[in-house]
């Protein structure tokens, strides 16, 4: 029986604004199925985004949703999580939002290991604003602001997350929704900062300028660049050149989580304060 997404969506807000064939649809649906599998209640979930095509996703989800300013989803999400650490906080944003203007918040969320799940729809471009290159646009690719080809090297988002201290890092791609759903589900269930990079297609802005204007063609191109982790583990550097490894890339369940540490600190500070005061504190 086909999965029914409608209970999780604000159906009255459809039709959505994304281009036909956009990879965001696959990412959002994978997220919904993952939430459903976990049996979470909509009232217990906050979905926070920044600015861009991907960041429009929360508006269509029937949960506690917040659409913030460019790159700042994590700041707001941190606030929500600190006030209600018992609730589920999800950040969904694009590559430009998360690692260009949002890069600083991103690395510190990784470092702090705050229990938020961060889904990055990486389509290697600033889609909504007309196809400007982002920190993940491949070197040499054409973009609205790179008419002679992008002269900059690009980030490996998963490496960036791992280097900064995230304790669950995974990469999937929109050509495999089943795998993406599992990676997102594991990230949601992980107690710590979880980053799921979803390699995605913006055929309208990126594809069109790089001889891949058809969504299926672009998705195939993305898929062809990937190699599963089990296989990659047996390949050498030369064989891996130009490839992106997909699957669960890193997991550490033992690192202290930010809200837990804060709760401990508060207890310690309040106990010390009670001890040092002459009169009992309420």
């Amino acid at each position, binding site marked *: 029986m086909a999965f029914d997404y409608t209970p999780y969506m604000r159906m009255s807000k459809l039709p959505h604004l994304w281009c036909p064939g956009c990879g965001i649809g696959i990412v959002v649906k994978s997220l919904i199925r993952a939430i459903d599998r976990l049996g979470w209640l909509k009232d217990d979930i906050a979905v926070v985004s920044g600015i861009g095509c991907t960041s429009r996703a929360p*508006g269509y989800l029937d949960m506690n*949703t917040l659409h913030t300013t460019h790159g700042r989803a994590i700041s707001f999400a941190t606030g929500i999580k600190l006030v209600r650490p018992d609730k589920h906080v999800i950040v969904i944003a694009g590559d430009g939002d998360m690692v260009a203007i949002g890069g600083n918040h991103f690395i510190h969320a990784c470092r702090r290991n705050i229990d938020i799940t961060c889904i990055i729809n990486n389509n290697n471009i600033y889609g909504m604003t007309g196809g400007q290159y982002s920190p993940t646009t491949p070197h040499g690719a054409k973009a609205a602001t790179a008419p002679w080809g992008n002269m900059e090297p690009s980030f490996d988002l998963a490496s960036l997350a791992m280097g900064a201290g995230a304790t669950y890092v995974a990469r999937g791609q929109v050509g495999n929704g089943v795998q993406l759903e599992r990676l997102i589900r594991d990230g949601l269930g992980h107690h710590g900062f979880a980053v799921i990079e979803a390699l995605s297609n913006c055929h309208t802005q990126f594809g069109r300028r790089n001889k891949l204007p058809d969504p299926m063609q672009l998705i195939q191109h993305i898929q062809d660049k990937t190699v599963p982790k089990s296989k990659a583990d047996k390949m050498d550097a030369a064989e891996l050149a130009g490839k992106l490894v997909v699957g669960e890339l890193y997991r550490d369940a033992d690192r202290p989580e930010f809200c837990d540490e804060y709760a401990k600190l508060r207890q310690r500070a309040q106990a010390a304060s009670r001890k040092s005061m002459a009169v009992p504190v309420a």
Partner: protein
Amino acid sequence: VDVQRSGPSTGLPTHPGQSDLMQARWGTHGDHATIALAPAYLHELYLETIRAFNLSEKYRLPVIVLIDEIIGHMSECFEVPRPEEYTIFDRVKPTCPPEEYSPYEVRDGELVPPMAAYFEGYRFHATGLNHDKTGFPTTHPVVCHQDEVRQLAKVSQNRGEIVSWEEVMADDAEILVVSFGSTARGAHAAVLEARKKGIRAGLFRPITVWPFPDEEIRRLSHRAKAIVVAEMNLGQMICEVERVAHSDIRIVGCQKVGGVPIEPHEIIEKIREVA
């Protein structure tokens, strides 16, 4: 909270200034209301910070506490107000069932929509984009225009509750000194000194600087001969005074930047100039 320093850009860290007054009002883009409070004493700072939260909860907008380095670094004795001495205002939450809730819908004659909290059954959308009453983005020109008008009206139609100030011998003042924050403390001393020398000086100290106390300045400007606006900037509050004061009155500024306070004798000089 803006603890003002001197100078634009990195300026003079750890030195006082009052040159963010206009930035507090217009620093962010778009048509927006602003509430900014400028306490001058630590006891007042304590209560005004509570009031800032109250106003923010009541009117659903950010409130700026605008002080300066002098107030930020000073030590002053005061009795901490007991909880019975002030009120706490918490935001109005919806009473309707979640299915009927529209996060930005106001009843006739009201301006501030009740605000639900997340995780309590009201699954609403909040966005920085212009939005309709359901919270969802819209580009409908009429909806956007009316919503922005409502947002400004939240403050403009509640000035009576928001505006606050202190007057010292202003009623019969011929020379009115207008000053805020730490500078106003020096202005207070200057006014007392001027009175001893036979000059009918008075002080008007805005505590709420935005919205600006238009009516009060306008009223006092009819009785006075001249206004001295003392501020640690090169002329910001003076623009507001010029805007609202009686057209025949003489208005001069006592302005100093460079990171040092304006001393009472400098203000007395200016009072003398226009007396």
